[in-house]
């Protein structure tokens, strides 16, 4: 289960397929591509598991489940490294 990092305020602006986003907690600004934007968008509505997140990507991109699966983990890891999201405490992925 994944969620947005609690306590942060995010402001963002989208132009074409790219998103710039500012995180008030870390004070950092990031450039995100479409896939990462979609994932963040889902999680802004509440915690979600990897199945839900994969489905959201599948809706947007014409890739099969295996390809989505391969993309999903690195994307989640990168978003976590930027402190935008985290794994929910005491729950399996």
């Amino acid at each position, binding site marked *: 289960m994944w969620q947005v990092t*609690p*306590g942060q305020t995010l402001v963002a602006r989208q132009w074409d397929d790219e998103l710039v986003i500012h995180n*008030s*907690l*870390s*004070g950092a600004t990031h450039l995100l591509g479409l896939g990462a934007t979609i994932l963040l968008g889902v999680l802004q509505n509440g915690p979600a598991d990897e199945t839900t997140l994969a489905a959201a990507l599948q809706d947007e991109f014409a890739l099969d489940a295996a390809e989505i699966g391969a993309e999903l983990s690195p994307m989640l890891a990168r978003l976590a490294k930027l402190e935008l999201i985290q794994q929910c*405490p005491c729950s399996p992925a």
Partner: protein
Amino acid sequence: MKPALLVEVLRDPQCASALAPRDWELLLSQARAAGLHGALPFVLADAGVQAPPAPRRHLDWLRTEALRHRDSMRNEVRLIAQALGGSAPLLLLKGAAYLMAGLPTARGRLFGDVDILVPKESLSAVERALVLHGWVTTHHDAYDQRYYREWMHELPPLEHMQRGTTIDVHHAILPETASLRPDPARLRAAAVPIAWPGTMPGQRPLFVLAPQDMVLHSALHLFWDGEFDHGLRDLFDIHRLLTAFDATPGFREALAGRARELGLERPLFYALRYCGRLFGTPAPALAAGRPNRLQLLLMDFLFERALQPDHASCAGRGTPAARFALYVRGNWLRMPPLLLARHLFHKAVISRRAPAGQDE
């Protein structure tokens, strides 16, 4: 000696309402030299002072800077707590403590490092935890390393590789070589837990020193350390701490009692004396900790000069000599004479701080 304009305004912010334009310029300049430029907008706003348009926008700019500083330091404390995990309870000192405890003295207070106090036994575990999370040691000179680890009361400052922030890990509040030895275990035992801000849920417990200990630590740091770069700022801290804690009945008695218990009556005497003289802090006449008449005259002369803002408009007669005399005294109180001579010699010849070069 005529008090500096900055001191007059800090003592009685209302008097700023009558300042001429060039005096506003001087006030801002002195505040910056004293490290109090972040606090000034808040002090004036709290007193309802409206500055004219030209200085007012400077106060707005300073407020922006101070708020940003506050947010980054809060984040820094959060990341330190995450890094330390269970290696030691997180007990904050000085600026970081005032900030996280929401004390009035934190408002606009700019500070460089986060200072924490941990048990001596936990030092290695704490250092390991920090290094694991991206901090590296500074002061690589072997002499400096020994200076900190063996003779002082702290690890050499650790700097975070990415964020560039610094943490000072103390295990006592005075070095083991010093003439006063307040027991750090007692300070830790009396530490009070504080709540994290609402925007930072789910963190490990956070502690600060008990109010009396906070005042005593600040007094000790100011009057024993010998470095007066932020002398006025630190004295103003003590004034604001006293003002805040005086709201609790019995605080002053507890303060005096604790000073006696920890052997810190002399620094408390000086703190109350100079706070009273500069900022008008109410202080009952203290007999405890009073030095002999001659020493008091000398200390008055030295401190009143050293506590001025470090600004050309404030250099009283004898100021560089005063600072030097107090620097030596500060180190004298911290180190036995032979060690002191070796330290001063080595510091002067080898460890000269590299001057800041200009960025092109």
